[in-house]
């Protein structure tokens, strides 16, 4: 039979974003794959060169719109290293709390979108309901549902409101019961197993060679988790296990993400207890005035100050909900970063599409790409 190229995207229910999957098919079988990105390329790295360090945080929220706080965390760690600023300990714990709540929100959003791809429409409503509870918590201390602008160079913007930790624990208890419910709705369904088992297999060697990270890598038996291997913020002070599976298929990725959510709840309970016991400042003292932090308001005088802050290079690498994200920030002494380079895990995970799609059938594309957890905002930047 003759082969042909078809476009799935940029407007296609499979994509969960704005990208184009060009597929070469022979009948029903996928012969070749050519993902096409860039439909959401917003030039974030370039605009960052024209903004103050704290103003770039606004862009980081929009870089990955399902994991805004994780990307804020990534950027803030790197820029603090570039500017030689140390955050207080409470701010580090608050950031870990933010990142883990964000992991919950991101994975539940993934769950909601993924189950629709395999034909289970009911869990979508359950997932969106529970994600809104996490967003309520964000809203109560950052003021926004998705774009938070919460972290600052040298700390975080504000402390938690009274009664937050108790409310958060209630939500965590609720969510832990819901995760079992999710498993019943998916693993208990024959549709799920028929569509997901032994599908989209990407073995550990291929994962590593093609730069695939995150739940996809951990589902292939490699327990690489930067929170454990290269601890940042307060992750060396909390206990958790690295989720893993060895089937390297769609079901394995599902199991890894569900286990990660349970581990996130475990981390969050420890962090909330710590926050209850240890009040303190959430911003570093003696920040340069032009940073515009809340304790150092930028005035006309600050604007006129001569800026000869020490130069530096900041590098950070965090375990974002989708995988290993990196930032490389060059500070040349000015009030703007000289260069902000961001590496997105989704970018690498999509680039390996040929490895896990070729050989399967066209109808297998939605579950496989759904299990990759695509967020185009961060892969295109």
């Amino acid at each position, binding site marked *: 039979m003759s082969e042909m190229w078809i476009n799935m995207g940029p*407007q296609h229910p499979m994509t969960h*974003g704005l990208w184009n999957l060009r597929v070469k098919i022979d009948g029903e079988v996928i012969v070749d794959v050519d993902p096409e990105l860039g439909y959401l390329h917003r030039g974030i790295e370039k605009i960052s060169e024209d903004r103050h360090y704290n103003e770039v945080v606004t862009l980081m929220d929009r870089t990955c719109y399902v994991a805004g706080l994780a990307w804020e965390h990534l950027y803030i760690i790197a820029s603090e290293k570039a500017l030689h600023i140390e955050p207080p300990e409470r701010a580090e714990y608050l950031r870990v709390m933010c990142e883990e709540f964000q992991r919950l929100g991101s994975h539940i*959003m993934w769950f909601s979108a993924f189950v629709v791809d395999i034909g289970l429409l009911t869990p979508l409503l359950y997932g*969106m309901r529970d994600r809104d509870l996490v967003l309520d*918590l964000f*809203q109560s201390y950052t003021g926004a*549902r998705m774009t938070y602008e919460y972290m600052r160079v040298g700390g975080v913007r504000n402390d938690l409101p009274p009664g937050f930790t108790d409310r958060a624990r*209630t939500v965590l208890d609720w969510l832990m019961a819901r995760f079992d419910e999710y498993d019943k709705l998916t693993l*208990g369904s024959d549709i799920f197993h028929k569509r997901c088992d032994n599908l989209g297999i990407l073995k550990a060697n291929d994962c590593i060679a093609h730069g695939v990270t995150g739940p996809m890598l951990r589902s292939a038996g490699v327990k690489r988790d930067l929170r454990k291997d290269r601890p940042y913020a307060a992750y060396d002070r909390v206990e958790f296990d690295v989720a*893993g599976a060895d089937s390297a298929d769609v079901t394995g990725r599902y199991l890894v993400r569900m286990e990660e959510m349970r581990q996130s709840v475990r981390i969050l309970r420890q962090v909330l207890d710590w926050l209850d016991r240890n009040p303190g400042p959430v911003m570093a003292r003696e920040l340069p005035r032009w940073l515009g932090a809340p304790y150092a308001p930028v005035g006309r005088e600050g604007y006129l100050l001569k800026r000869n802050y020490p130069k530096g290079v900041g590098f950070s690498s965090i375990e974002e909900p989708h995988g290993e994200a990196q930032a490389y920030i060059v500070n040349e002494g000015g009030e703007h970063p000289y260069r902000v380079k961001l590496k997105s895990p989704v970018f690498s995970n999509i680039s390996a599409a040929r490895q896990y799609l070729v050989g399967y059938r066209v109808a297998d594309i939605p579950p496989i790409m759904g299990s990759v957890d695509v967020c185009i905002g961060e892969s295109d930047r």
Partner: protein
Amino acid sequence: MSASPSVRPAPVARSMTLPPESLRLEGELPMAGAAVPFVEIEALRAREFIPAAKEALGSLISNRSRETLIGPVFNWAGRNSLFPLHWGLACCAIEFAAAFGARWDAERFGVVARSSPRQCDLMIVNGTVTWKVAHKLITLYEQMPEPKWVIAMGNCATGGGPFRTAYSVVPGVDKLVPVDVYIAGCPPRPEALLDGILTLEKLIRERKE
């Protein structure tokens, strides 16, 4: 704490033999802060259909013009079943999805997202439009049957938003297609999206063909 899934566990229940109470919610939904604000469902009132239908029948009897006959009925039906195009551009798409989730339930206004542009009469531009996607957006708009409307959701679609100065971003989707309703916010909350849809429904009601 469940066991680590290093070995794929046997499926919990292969054929949904779970007791029904296992899916029952324990306790109240832990909603933080205020509940969902009440949105007046003005568009769904069936009683405005009755005078319109009477008028249509009357005009049929009195043999008046075709516009008078079908105009009100068509407008009533059209505005109560807006079918937006199901696509996600950027951040606003997540709030777009949340509006169709359990808490806001946009489908009670008759809004059902469809994946084919040929079934749609409403394009919600939910995110940043880049020059690379611009011609595809115009193609999608042209594939939608008349009459059709466009909602620019969020600051990016309205005027470029935080990416206004970027080299790759269209500063406002109204440079490409005509826009009927603009919604402010970065991203707008689901309530704001619902309000924008209801505003569009008012516009359609006032429409004169």
